[in-house]
């Protein structure tokens, strides 16, 4: 079975969801990820400065940085562009 979402789509979902600080558990639940792939995606985004880690006592929370806005904007432009050009579907 083909992958439902690409990594880029998952990054976008994570960054949009982390507009306000979110825990790992709520994040993988909301973005429909398993623990392993969730960790991988988060590490990738943290390493590149798109997500920041906030420590709140025992809890670790993730929040999107200003840099994430650039990616979110580019992604939205590209995906909404799919409906701007080319033939559409009509019954």
């Amino acid at each position, binding site marked *: *079975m*083909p*992958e*439902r*979402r*690409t990594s*880029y*789509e998952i*990054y*976008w*979902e994570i960054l*949009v969801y982390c507009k306000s600080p979110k825990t790992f558990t709520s994040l993988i639940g909301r973005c429909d990820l398993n623990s392993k792939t969730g960790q991988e995606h988060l590490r990738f985004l943290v390493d*590149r*400065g*798109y997500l920041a880690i906030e420590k709140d006592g025992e809890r670790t929370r993730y929040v999107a940085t200003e*840099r994430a806005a*650039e*990616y*979110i904007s*580019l*992604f*939205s*432009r*590209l*995906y*909404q*562009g*799919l*409906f*701007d050009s*080319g*033939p*559409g*579907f*009509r*019954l």
Partner: protein
Amino acid sequence: MTDTSGRRFGKELTSFFVLVLLNLALGALVMAFGMQIMVTAIIEYSGEGYLSVLFSVTRVVIGAAGICAGIFWIKTSAKIFKGIKNVREEYRNSPDPVPDRALTGWIVTLLAHYRENRTVIMQMALIGTIGGAIFLAFGVTNLVQGVQAVAADTGQVYGYLAFFAAAVNMTIGIGTIYFARGFRTYARVWDMRLDQAGKGEESLKQALESR
């Protein structure tokens, strides 16, 4: 951009939603026809003569095939329907113009839905075409029976009933082929979008890895 894209997205979503709903109804109709053929064959079964038995068995098999095709039809349509129902509800409850992030999220959801159901959608297009052709063939057969009955001047009522059956079968046949064409068009449009999204990934990759 959001407004234009949002409106276009909404129109397409509604069109596809209606197509899947009608297809669901068609599946139920195919199943009902299958049952009718099978039950009639069993009721009319006389058991006299080899040819009569063979004819009855053939009708039962055709009826059973119709029921199976109808069940498959309903099951696959319901699966496709389930995937777009939530997006449509959210879209209908959203303000106008549609919020930027919500629209992008729905597009991502529908792309994922298409990736997952591409094979099923292509199957619907194929089965719809075959099913439509079978209904049209039934319709033509009824038409010939009607013309023969009226021309022979032996069974006017039978002739009119045959014409009525021809009209029903041909309407369903044309409708089915039309829906199959709808699925093919949908697949073609979304294949192009998948391709376009794939090309856009390069710039996303660059943006992500530029740091």
